[in-house]
Structures are given as structure tokens and as C-alpha cells.
């Protein structure tokens, strides 16, 4: 890190980036979230998980949601998916309110959720066949999706024969096969090692460029958020509220080299400021007061290097 060097403001956008955002905002709104509240009843009383959340996403936009732990990111995406119900406000998908899960919103989970008893191909066909498509047509389409993610060779393999990254690629293909209006991703690469994760990010951008899909992507990895997103929605915790919706000034097409660009670093600095400043306010005092207990030294160490 080099604190001497002055970074530009994250708000500064090059002309190309500004034009791109203008075009993006002219596109129709796919998802509108209005005044969303979520209150959990617990034995200790009510916990406010989400409070008055507002945001929109436009068609073919890539929106990342970041925030400290406990900010309700996962709750938010589960409400968008229809797996949980909000206690207030509404979610509109192309103007229609969302009630319960549906095939118009695909979802990729953090854990591996491929059906272990189905082959890779049958996993991708699952959504198609439960929605009434014939077997042969579903199979044809599934193979196309597998080709898109580069796993057609594994069509007849079972999920347990795949690596973690491959599993998540199949999960993406399975969600996309239904041709949803929006793809919801809940920290989908969180369980992968760093190298695989980087490959998966590139891969996801590649898929996103090829097809007409809007993505809402939850992550706690700020680099990942900046690298992938058009805009980053920053939440704060207790209660979960929107802090800022940041337009990422890093130009497209995105490349790994941009990780050290000024725009990238400025955005990251801003995100860190928003997230960690808040976290420190909450946890900082306790950390200073915490005394480490005296550990009895169990091992004789002669060459003390520490």
C-alpha cells in the first residue's frame, strides 16, 4: 500500500464510463426494491435485519451488494428470491410484485446445491422439465448451456465427481437454463480457493457479456465486487440500511490488471471506509480493552525468532 500517492476521487468517471452509465440507466428497470423492511421475531424480542431498503437495477446491469457481517445481505437476496417474506415494502420484478420463489428469478447459492442423484446434464434439465418442457428439448438446451460453461464433457458425470468451481459453473448453467429475468447470486464463490475464484469471476463476466441477463451478486470480497459490478450497493449493519450506491468508475471490459488502477483503488478505499469505519465503531472499543491472557509456554524454544 502506498498512502503517499493521492488517489482520484471514486466519483470521477472517464467519459466512456459516464456514457456507459447513461446508457445503462436508460434501459428499463428489471428490479425495483421499495422501502423493504425485514424484522425477525426472536425470543429476546424483535431484530431489525433490513430497514427501508430502496434500489433499482436496470436490464443487463451487474449489481454487487457488499456490507459488513450482519448487514442482512443474505436476507435481502433471499427475499428477492422469494424464499423469505419481507415484513414491509415491496419488490417488483418488471413491475410485478414478487410473491414466493419462481423461475423468473434464478439463484446460485453459496453452498453446493446441485442434486447429487442427478448427472450434470440432468441437473441443468431440472428447471426445464419441472416447468413442463419435453425431455428431448430440455436435453438439447441443457447441452447448449453446458457448452457455454465449457463442461459439455462432464454432461454424464455426477456432481461428486466435479471440483468446487465446476459445481458452481453447473449451478450457474442450471439457473440460467430457465432463462430467468434476473440471476441472484449469494456469495457463490465464497467457498472456492483464490485461484479458482479468480477464474470463476472472469468466467462469469464472460457469460454475462454473452447473454441478456441482469445479475444481483452478494459478496464480502470488495475486489470481487469492484471487478464484477457496474454498481455496488453498500449496506451497513444493525439495522441493515443502504449506505451508498456506488457507480464503479473502472472501465469495461474488465481485466485482472485493473486491480491496481487508480479508479479501482479509489473505489476500494471508499468501500473500506464505508464498511470498516462502521465495523470499528461497533467493535473497536472492545478490541482495545481485550487483554490477551498469559499463555504458559509449552515448548522450549531456543532460537527465539519472534
Amino acid at each position, binding site marked *: 500500500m502506498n498512502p503517499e500517492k493521492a488517489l482520484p476521487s471514486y466519483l470521477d468517471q472517464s467519459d466512456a464510463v459516464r456514457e456507459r452509465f447513461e446508457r445503462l440507466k436508460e434501459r428499463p428497470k428489471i428490479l425495483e426494491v421499495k422501502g423493504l423492511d425485514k424484522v425477525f421475531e426472536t425470543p429476546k424480542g424483535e431484530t431489525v435485519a433490513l430497514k427501508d431498503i430502496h434500489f433499482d437495477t436496470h436490464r443487463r446491469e451487474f449489481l454487487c451488494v457488499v456490507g459488513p457481517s450482519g448487514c442482512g445481505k443474505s436476507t435481502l437476496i433471499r427475499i428477492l428470491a422469494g424464499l423469505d417474506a419481507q415484513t414491509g415494502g415491496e419488490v417488483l420484478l418488471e413491475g410485478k410484485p414478487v410473491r414466493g*420463489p419462481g423461475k423468473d428469478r434464478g*439463484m446460485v447459492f453459496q453452498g453446493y*446445491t446441485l*442434486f447429487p*442423484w442427478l448427472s450434470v446434464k440432468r441437473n441443468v434439465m431440472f428447471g426445464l422439465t419441472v416447468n413442463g418442457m419435453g425431455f428431448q428439448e430440455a436435453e438439447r438446451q441443457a447441452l447448449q448451456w453446458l457448452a457455454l460453461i465449457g463442461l459439455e464433457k462432464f454432461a454424464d458425470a455426477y456432481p461428486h465427481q466435479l471440483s468446487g468451481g465446476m459445481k458452481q459453473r453447473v*449451478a450457474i448453467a442450471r*439457473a440460467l437454463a430457465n432463462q430467468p429475468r434476473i440471476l441472484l447470486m449469494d456469495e457463490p464463490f465464497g467457498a472456492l480457493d483464490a485461484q479458482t475464484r479468480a477464474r470463476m469471476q472472469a468466467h462469469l463476466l464472460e457469460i454475462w457479456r454473452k447473454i441478456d441477463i441482469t445479475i444481483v451478486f452478494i459478496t464480502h470480497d470488495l475486489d470481487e465486487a469492484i471487478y464484477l459490478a457496474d454498481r455496488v450497493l453498500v449496506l451497513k449493519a444493525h439495522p441493515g440500511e443502504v449506505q451508498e450506491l456506488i457507480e464503479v468508475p473502472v472501465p469495461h471490459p474488465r481485466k485482472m490488471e485493473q486491480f491496481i488502477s487508480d479508479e479501482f483503488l479509489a473505489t476500494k478505499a471508499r468501500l473500506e471506509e464505508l464498511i470498516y469505519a462502521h465495523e470499528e465503531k461497533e467493535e473497536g472499543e472492545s478490541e482495545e480493552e481485550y487483554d490477551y491472557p498469559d499463555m504458559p509456554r509449552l515448548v522450549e524454544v531456543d532460537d527465539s525468532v519472534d
Partner: protein
Amino acid sequence: MSRTNWFSVQTELSSQAKTVLGVFSFILPILVWSIVSYVPVVWHPLVQITDPGSVSYLQVDMRMPRGPFEDAVAEAQAEGQAPPEGFPANPVYLPAPHEVAEALYTAFVTPPPSKDMPWLHQSLWHSIQVIFWGFFLSSAIGVPLGVLCGAYAPISRLTEPFVEFFRYLPAPAFGALAVAILGIYDGPKIAIIFIGTFFQQVLIIANTTRKLDGALAEAALTLGAGNLQLLTRVVVPGVLPDLYRDLRILLGWAWTYLIVAELIGTTSGITWFITQQARYQHFENVYAAIIIIGIIGLGTDLVLGMLARRFFPWDRNGK
């Protein structure tokens, strides 16, 4: 041979080592049994009489404790009469391996003494049918009910408290009632197997179903699966390998109810054979029958295990 430490916790063994150890798990008990049976200094608390001598109450082949036998010998000798003779023996309850092996062989090759009595293999087949029908009927109702209980909380609450209560009631206690309702032939026997299996089955299957990863169901919902599809296309296939494993264990339990079942109504089957032979103290036949049951049980389980690997190639805890 590479050195492997067999005794590090939860280490996988090579398949060769598994086979060898598996064979030894049978050889060791047989070895112990042989030692106890054939080495006279080991146990042998009794004396089997070969010649009663002058002792009036002794008969050839009678077994008596060593102490009283020695007293009888001393007494006879003191009186100058012929002492009884005999050799060390084990109680009649523990026949030697070769006696059991012989009984095992004769049991299958000896025709039944009376024409309306079954061959041993017919008794066995009869028992297997009783087990099959009891277990089949139980599973035909218990498995779907268990899955529904595991999948839907209202069904679970409506069913499981009573089932939980009922499973503590000893199945044999319903013997007389079963005869009154179902007659004297196989009906009540099947009913006992059913009662002994069914209630455990519902609870175990329900618990297995509940253990299904909830994320799979959520994934299916986001893919547009309806409620019924969730049950038929996610819950059922998802729990199938575990369910199959449960059934294998439950089938073993069903055998334990057979001995009670076959005492009800008209007598039949392999465990009746055991009861009858034990009553007349033919323990070599008893052990032979026990071994047959063991072989059938183990054999069935091995076959079911092999089938499981065919049925559920994706299942990795299936071994």
C-alpha cells in the same frame, strides 16, 4: 508391503486389509469356540458318563458336575465297588463346532420324519416369506408415511407422538389379538413382524427425511418446482440412499421378531424349529439353525449392499 498404521483414528484401510480383517472377524470366534470345545483343560466343568459303574442313578451319556462325580468315584472305591467312568465335557448348551457342522449338514439332507412336516429348507422358506410379507407391508405403508412426516410438519405432528408411544408397546403382547383377528396361520405372524417393524420404521424414515439438506429444496423452488414436484423430484430421490440403508437395518430387526411370531398360531418356520429343538436339548440343531439365520441375514445384507452401489452410484457414504 508398505507400513500402514492401522490404529490411527478414522484411517481408511486398503480393501485387501478390509477383506483379511473381515475373514478374521469370523475365524477368531470360531477359534475361541474350538479351544473351549476341544481343549479339555479349558472350561469343561462337567463329566460325561461312559460307564455308570455301580452308581445306580447314573446313565451312559449323562453329564454331571465334576465335584459330585469325583465324590461318587471315591464313594464307590471306598465301598470296593466299580467306580463310574467318564470324560470331561461341556454343558449340553455348548455343542462343539463339528457337532454343529454335522447337524447343519444332516438338517438339510434328512427328510422330514413325517409326511405332513416340512423339510428344513421348507421351514426356512416359510420363515423368509413371513419376514418378507411383514416387512413388505410395513414398508409399503411406513416408508411413504415416514417420508411425509419428514417432509410436512403437520403430518409429523399428527402421526409421530402416537407412533412414538406405540413403538414402546411390545409387539409380542399383540399375539393373541392378532390370532383373534387374523386367524391361526401366517396372518398373525406377519402382523407381529409388521407391528415390530412399522412404528420404528416411520420414526426412522421421518428422521432420515428431515436430514435432507434444506438448500436442495430451496434450489428446486428457485428453479420453479411446485410443492408436489419438490416431494417427488427432490425429497424422495434425495433421501433414497439413506432410506435404503435404514431399510437394511430395519430388516435385521424384523428377524428378531420372527422367533416371537412363529410361536403364535400354528407352529411353523425356522425359529419354531429352534424352540422345539431347545426344548428337547438338541443344542447342536439349535446352533445350526442360528448359523443358518446368520448366514441368510448376512447374505441378504451383502446382496442389498451390492445392489445399493448399483442403484445409487452417486452415493458416497454407501459402502
